[in-house]
């Protein structure tokens, strides 16, 4: 079974309905029409561009290009992690810690999955490598960003508690232990929720896509389970690394709480 071809005029039909929605919000003065249209336009442009890039990438099937693509995705994700924090670590540490954590976890898990579990030939075959890495990075990014944001913001709010615990002679790991647990929890919660809801509350996107593309539901389900597990691994280890490095950075070599290493809050 092949996918039914979708032509541009059919997309234009869907787009016109978005215009109708934008028109309605404009008439009701809800002030959403502008941002709605800009976002819709961004979707079209960004996806059209990535479509071109992927077409070229799939045709070339060269490791260099796959690696370059992966690097670009990683750097953009690192920038996102930094931008999503209320009080981020200064001096490039937020970007550095976030990017390194995502690199270590997402890349390791993706490469392991490709070489050991799925085994396409060659192992970096872009049809498998790029979507897998994309799903991995997207979710790891959310986990790392949420965890680092929770870590730095809670440390700032509970600074007097942390310092009082230091005064009592607790090592820094113990003084910030509860906050580290909270940060880990908020990083992993979206993935745990997604796994718990999968198939009952929501039909995961990748599985839905494969079924639409004609894959049998039984195989699509297997792929979805594999992807869920690998994403959880990537998010888990990425969050773990980011929380460990981020909390270490909040203290200096004399185990003093160094909130001067955080930037001023952004709204």
């Amino acid at each position, binding site marked *: 079974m092949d996918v039914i071809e979708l032509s541009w005029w059919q997309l234009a039909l869907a787009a016109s309905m978005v215009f109708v929605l934008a028109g309605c919000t404009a008439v009701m003065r809800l002030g959403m029409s502008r941002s709605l249209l800009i976002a819709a336009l961004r979707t079209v442009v960004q996806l059209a561009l990535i479509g071109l890039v992927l077409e070229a990438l799939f045709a070339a099937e060269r490791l260099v290009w796959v690696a370059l693509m992966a690097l670009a995705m990683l750097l953009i994700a690192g920038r996102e992690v930094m931008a999503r924090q209320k009080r981020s670590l200064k001096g490039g540490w937020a970007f550095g810690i976030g990017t390194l954590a995502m690199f270590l976890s997402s890349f390791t898990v993706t490469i392991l999955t490709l070489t050991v579990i799925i085994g396409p030939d060659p192992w970096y075959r872009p049809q498998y490598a790029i979507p897998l890495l994309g799903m991995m990075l997207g979710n790891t990014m959310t986990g790392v960003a949420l965890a680092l944001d929770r870590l730095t913001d809670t440390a700032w709010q*509970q600074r*007097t*508690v942390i*310092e*009082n*615990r*230091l*005064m*009592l*002679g*607790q*090592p*820094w790991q113990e003084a910030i232990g*509860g906050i580290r647990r909270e940060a880990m929890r908020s990083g992993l919660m979206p993935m745990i929720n997604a796994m718990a809801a999968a198939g009952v509350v929501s039909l995961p996107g990748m599985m839905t896509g494969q079924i639409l593309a004609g894959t049998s539901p039984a195989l699509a389900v297997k792929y979805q389970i594999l992807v869920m597990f690998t994403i959880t691994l990537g998010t888990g280890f990425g969050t773990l690394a980011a929380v460990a490095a981020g909390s270490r950075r909040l203290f*200096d070599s*004399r*185990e*003093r709480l160094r909130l001067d290493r955080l930037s001023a809050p952004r709204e």
Partner: protein
Amino acid sequence: MTAINVLRLERLVVGNLDEVNLDVAPGDIVCLSGASGSGKSRLLRAVADLESHGGEVWLAGRAQSTMPAHRWRRRVMLVPAESQWWSDRVGEHFPGGIEDDDLDALGFEREVMSWQVGRLSSGEKQRLALLRGISRRPSALLLDEPTANLDEAATRRVEAWLQAKIRGSGWPVLWVAHDKEQIARVAYRHLHIDGSRLLAQAVATWM
């Protein structure tokens, strides 16, 4: 090198204060006073190594910088004016337990350990913070206005208990105080912060 439990501040530089050189002998209470914002609390924080500072602090011949920071703070215990309580119950902040005699001395029943932290008054918190500090078995004490939230009777009770404890254990003590009468009652020496200088003041002669 001596093993006598002396707290020695050597060319300590923190905030706007000039170099501080000070020896506190075992069992001695040195009171610090000064206007608010004059740097009393920062000086205590520097001695506890919670604030970056110049110079060195020694306890019983061991330098602060040669010891892991958390082990130093366990020995040189700073009890802040406003204590923080992070667990639900009081007892969870006392992993090593506490002597019943000390609870009695500060007017607590044994059940205080099962109390909810949320129902503590500021005076109870202050007395419990002192108990919590000494329950970690320190070798020196840094007290930041230890009776600020207490009424006259409780203040006297805490003073008497602290003085007995300090003399009995041979702790060198830095004690930040506002009240002249309290300083007269407890201080072996009294230093007043005036601008950037630490000036020795006369103390009651019967000491």
